[in-house]
């Protein structure tokens, strides 16, 4: 029997297959490995940041700062490579350290000040965006031979599609993210926290450490997404990736994760990202549709999935109510 907690994930999979089938029926070329490879490459940074967002949302929180952190990472790398002669790998390490610490600080503020994640990460969003403006308001190009080297790493599929390094990084992040969420104690703690803070506390979940770790992971992955984005665009620009946090949240929800926390799968987010990428690809293929349809379709999908989750929630609640036979009021 299918468990009701798996239903949103199955709905996501069905949506993805259906969407792909609709696209393929109109444009058979969408099955080519080139399209698939581009789908992975173009959405690499979004996918990486969506893994972190999945953790945050599973724990019942929200992280609005990721878009700004991506932009900050890109600008930081670009400026540091322009002004100093350090190796990009060292810069990457520096960026990851900064963004992880930034996320941890936000997690600490959320836990110790007992403030809603929404407003704390809003402050983080302003801070990170402001910091990248202060570093540079102009687009800074990255011209390092190491970047050319990284960009030239790809696996060429027999039919011509080029699976690039950044797509691989995204896939690796998803695999690692899924393993951590479902196979480690930290992952279990995230689910427990999302199920209910009081209950988690009574179960012995270290609330402070878990909250801080969750936001640190989200910050760090946003940093990694920033690195990937800088590889993708070969530049750092402080106005880039505005609103990516919304895309990431939408991908997580379309991926079947409950926004109240506690239910969901990292794998679902992967398909959420792919569905969003697919919509864009379809619009590009079509050529007559305008880009604003992307937003409307994503909004509609978002609504449909929220409705689905609500419906399931009601269903399980009424079922439980009838089996217990009591009239518990919410």
């Amino acid at each position, binding site marked *: 029997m299918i468990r009701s907690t798996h239903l949103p994930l199955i709905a996501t999979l069905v949506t993805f297959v259906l969407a792909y089938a609709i696209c393929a029926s109109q444009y058979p070329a969408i099955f080519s490995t080139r399209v698939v490879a581009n789908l992975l490459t173009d959405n690499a940074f979004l996918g990486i940041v969506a893994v972190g967002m999945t953790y945050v949302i599973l724990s019942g929180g*929200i992280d609005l700062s990721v878009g700004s952190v991506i932009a900050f990472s890109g600008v930081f790398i670009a400026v540091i490579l322009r002004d100093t002669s350090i190796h990009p790998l060292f810069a990457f390490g520096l960026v990851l350290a900064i963004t992880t610490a930034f996320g941890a600080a936000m997690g600490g*503020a959320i836990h*110790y*000040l*007992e*403030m*809603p994640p*929404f*407003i*704390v990460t*809003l*402050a*983080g*969003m*302003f*801070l990170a*965006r*402001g*910091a990248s*403006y*202060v570093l540079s*308001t102009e687009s800074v190009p990255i011209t390092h031979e190491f970047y050319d080297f990284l960009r030239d790493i790809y696996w060429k599929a027999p039919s011509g599609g080029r699976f690039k390094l950044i797509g691989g990084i995204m896939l690796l992040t998803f695999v690692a993210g899924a393993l951590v969420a479902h196979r480690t104690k930290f992952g279990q703690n995230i689910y427990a926290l999302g199920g209910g803070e009081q209950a988690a506390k009574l179960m012995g979940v270290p609330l402070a450490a878990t909250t801080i770790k969750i936001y640190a992971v989200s910050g760090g992955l946003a940093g990694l997404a920033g690195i990937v984005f800088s590889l993708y665009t070969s530049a750092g620009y402080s106005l880039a990736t505005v609103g990516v946090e*919304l895309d990431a*949240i*939408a991908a997580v*929800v379309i991926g079947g994760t409950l*926004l*109240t926390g506690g239910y969901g799968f990292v794998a679902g987010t992967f398909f959420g990202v792919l569905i969003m990428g697919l919509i864009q690809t379809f619009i590009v293929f079509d050529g007559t549709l*305008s880009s*604003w*349809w*992307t*937003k*409307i379709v*994503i*909004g*509609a999908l*978002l*609504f449909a999935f*929220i*409705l689905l989750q*609500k419906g399931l929630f009601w269903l399980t609640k009424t079922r439980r109510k009838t089996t217990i036979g009591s009239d518990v*009021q*919410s």
Partner: protein
Amino acid sequence: MSSTTQSIYKRILPQLIILAAVLVLNFLVFPDFFSIEFKNGRIFGNLIDVLNRCAPTAILCVGMTLVIATKGIDLSVGAVMAITGATAASLVVDGHGWFTALIGAVAVGALCGIWNGFLVAVLRIQPIVATLVLMVAGRGIAQLITEGTILTFHDEGLVRLGAGTIIGIPTPILIWITLGAIATFIVRKTSLGMLIEAIGINEASSRLAGINSRTLLVCVYLISGMCAAIAGVIVAADIKGADANNAGLWLELDAILAVVIGGNSLLGGRFSIIASLLGAMIIQSVNSVILLSGMPPEFNLVIKALLILAILVIQSPKIAHLRYMLRATDPLPRDKPKPPSVAPQEKSQ
């Protein structure tokens, strides 16, 4: 009567102090800041400019304060501004009068508000998520209305709403002050304000107490949508065009920030519209300091972030509890700290 005015005064005192401090800062970096002159039938001055520029945020604030008082949040206001600005512009371009355009825009805003309210109150979706749907889709809808272009118009009446004057005072100032006054009057002279606060403090018990929380919640989001509509029309009228991509961009965050600076808890409950409006003025005055002092505008966001951080620390239930305990240590120094429910008013859930 005098006791209520006194309590209002006490409530908004911190905001007044901050505003005064920022204004003095303005004066220090730009000594002509307070000079106001009357030229060509219109008053000019930096102070007037601050009041004029904070109009969209202030108008959004009125609705946002009520929404936040019910423990909700409305992320869609920026997108609704884009939709309503586009509606008004397209109506005017089609040859309708400015009044029809205004009514049409407000009606569309009301519709958006009802949609949000329906999701929150009837379908019981968390406010952040419910309003996120319109926030994501809204700009797409706005672009659908403008057909992807920036719709420009030259209708005198509509432009006057954003850039005109009435007896020398810029119209936006009059609009936001009137709106704020009407809203304050209604929520404070009737029991509406108390009922809204009751929902924010504990919705389940407010329902048990006989409050029709569902209808009231829809109404609160409706008001927020209508405020966003008016703000959207003003912004569109100001630039004589509807820009679906940039109209009201990130203004929802400014409005939330203004409400928070106004000392309203994001956890719902007690609210003050006047304090929120002061918050909007504070934000604009800070912008003005940055501009007048010649600091690079890039610092604007950093300063905003620091402002939020300061408020977070002040508003935090933990800190409030600590202050409460410090004050309470005099009579009974060994008093065991009770569960945080002792902390004044900020108890969540």
